[in-house]
């Protein structure tokens, strides 16, 4: 008897739970008529950026976050065509995904290209054979971030400080081999675009010196934490994307572009060729490139960066523009170079050099 009562209760409970689950599922179905699958960097996961688009278009945006082109390509290789509608990728790597046959053409006249900073249109990277496959949405610099109360800001104007012993044990290295090797290349007085295998021995020597002078090699979160908590005083590879969001609470943190220059990062957004919702995907791209979307993306909670659309300035507060160094951009754009774009073989060698440095 007890068992049957318990059984009846269990059935009722199960039935109620199932009803609630169905209601929740249907409510989910009703609240978002469509879904969009986006493979993105962490700055796109900020609800302040995504929710306005979701509400305006009655859509649920499913976001999958990744870090580094290798990881993104790895995810694409494991996915079926149609799994993804939109992708954010390093601007210098757009052609790698075009080569995989995964990016769709976007109508150039549907994009606000004329409003973008001229240096960030990057036709050589975003287009092929006159067809537009991606558009640059955000940029910034991999350079030197530091605590200006603990180091001499003048020292930060020379890239050679990153492999000197002056601040030994007080430096963190950003754990991404491409911009870091690019920075070393600049420090050696060479251009990132001309990096070849012949440059690698000298680069490896400097990487070794950098490791010896550093305290840690850290990813985005760890490097930001290390600088903010005073664990290190200098972050090589940092920039506005590390310090700008902390400007309010940590005014002691600063960044600069040394006299030899710095590496400029730029991220592009693209519509996937096999998207089952190409119109909605294009709409998402248009939203991200709109002045409002750009301002939200620039000040995303994961990391800040400069918007590529110049009109975004109208939607940014003066202190936000100050933190992003809006007025200094012409000079910075002139004194910075894009990431190196290695062949597959050189890419392997660069990664080996980076792994060897970490195991040193």
């Amino acid at each position, binding site marked *: 008897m007890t068992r049957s009562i318990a059984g009846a209760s269990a059935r009722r409970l199960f039935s109620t739970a199932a009803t609630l689950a169905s209601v929740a599922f249907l409510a989910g179905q009703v609240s978002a008529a469509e879904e969009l699958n986006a493979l993105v960097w962490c700055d796109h996961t900020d609800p302040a950026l995504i929710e306005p688009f979701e509400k305006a278009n009655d859509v649920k945006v499913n976001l999958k976050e990744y*870090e*580094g082109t*290798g*990881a993104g*390509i*790895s995810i694409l*290789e494991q996915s079926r065509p149609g799994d993804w509608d939109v992708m954010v990728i390093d601007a210098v790597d757009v052609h*790698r995904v075009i080569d995989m046959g995964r990016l769709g053409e976007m109508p150039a006249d549907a994009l606000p290209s004329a409003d973008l900073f001229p240096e960030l249109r990057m036709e050589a990277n975003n287009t092929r054979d006159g067809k537009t496959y991606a558009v640059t949405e955000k940029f910034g610099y991999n350079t030197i971030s530091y605590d200006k109360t603990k180091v001499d800001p003048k020292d930060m104007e020379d890239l050679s400080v990153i492999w000197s012993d002056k601040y030994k*044990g007080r430096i963190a290295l950003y*754990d991404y*081999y491409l911009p870091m090797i690019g920075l070393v290349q600049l420090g050696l007085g060479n251009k990132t675009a001309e990096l070849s295998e012949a440059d690698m021995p000298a680069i490896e020597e400097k990487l070794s010196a950098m490791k010896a002078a550093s*305290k*840690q*090699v*850290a*990813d985005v979160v*760890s490097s930001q*934490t*290390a600088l903010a*908590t*005073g*664990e290190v005083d200098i972050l090589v590879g940092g920039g506005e994307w590390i310090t700008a969001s902390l400007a309010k609470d940590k005014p002691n943190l600063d960044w600069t572009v040394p006299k030899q220059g710095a590496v400029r990062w730029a991220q592009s957004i693209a519509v996937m060729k096999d998207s089952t919702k190409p119109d909605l995907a294009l709409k998402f791209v248009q939203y991200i490139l709109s002045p409002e979307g750009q301002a939200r993306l620039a000040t995303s909670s994961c990391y800040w960066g400069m918007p590529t659309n110049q009109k975004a300035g109208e939607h940014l507060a003066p202190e936000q523009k100050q933190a992003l160094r809006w007025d200094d951009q012409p000079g910075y754009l002139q004194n910075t170079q894009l990431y190196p774009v290695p062949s*597959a*073989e050189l890419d*392997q060698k660069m*990664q*080996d050099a980076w*792994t*060897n440095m*970490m*195991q040193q």
Partner: protein
Amino acid sequence: MTTATLEDRERRRAWGFVAPALLWTLAFFVVPFLYMAAMSLWLRQGRDIVRVWNLDNYARFFTESALLKGLTNSLEITLTVTALSVLLAYPLAWIIAERVPKRWQRMALILAILPFWTSYVVRSYSWLLVLSKGGVINQALLGIGLISEPLEIASNRTATVIGFVHFFVMLLTLTIYSNLIQLSPNYRRAAADLGANGFQTFWHVVLPLTLPGIMTGAFLTFVLCIGDYITPQILGGNNELVLPQIIMLQIGRRADFPMAAALSIILMLAVTAAYLLCARWLKIERA
């Protein structure tokens, strides 16, 4: 004839019971393992995976010092963590089993494993803050004047070992405690009757009888520690890479699945070797 039919029926029933577990193991362990083993013999060339059978990935592992060092780092850290965890967990388990009144033992165990209830990642980041220059430990030591400069205990191997030991002491406490409470007090009484003092009783009677508990916990610690990626990644400061971190680099940055598969096989071989070393104590038996 009837006997044979009964035996057949029994055999079929036995297979019926075993089949789900067997199918599960086949589908989710044996088949993926064989696929991984096969993939470890392929090659990533440029941006393509070439399906030609060869041992190049294994050869690379033994000739590239950065890769080999991943295994030696893993083994050094794992053995240190296992030894420290056993040394700390045994007295704790013994105190709970022998000195804490029966009615409080459950509460004592809950308190001992309380940190298990928090997220692994959150716990690792918390340790990072505790061990950092401005963290609780350094501030306390500076405050009482024991040190004049902050200790370098964050973002290095020391931090990784501390994070691991904190976690595995809890696990080992459980396995050793469960072994200790099964020990009949008659063993100790007999030892005392034969003239053994407290230390001799522990050394010659209690410790050997609790070895299965120690070895079970130590083996679990070894397996979980050598395969862990999160703790070294958060607490180690990337100042040295362990094998799981190198495997993640092959997948995340290079999309070199064949090399990642080869390294995973090597990791499994290390675990198998540890199992074979501990096998005599890992039998399911009563003390």
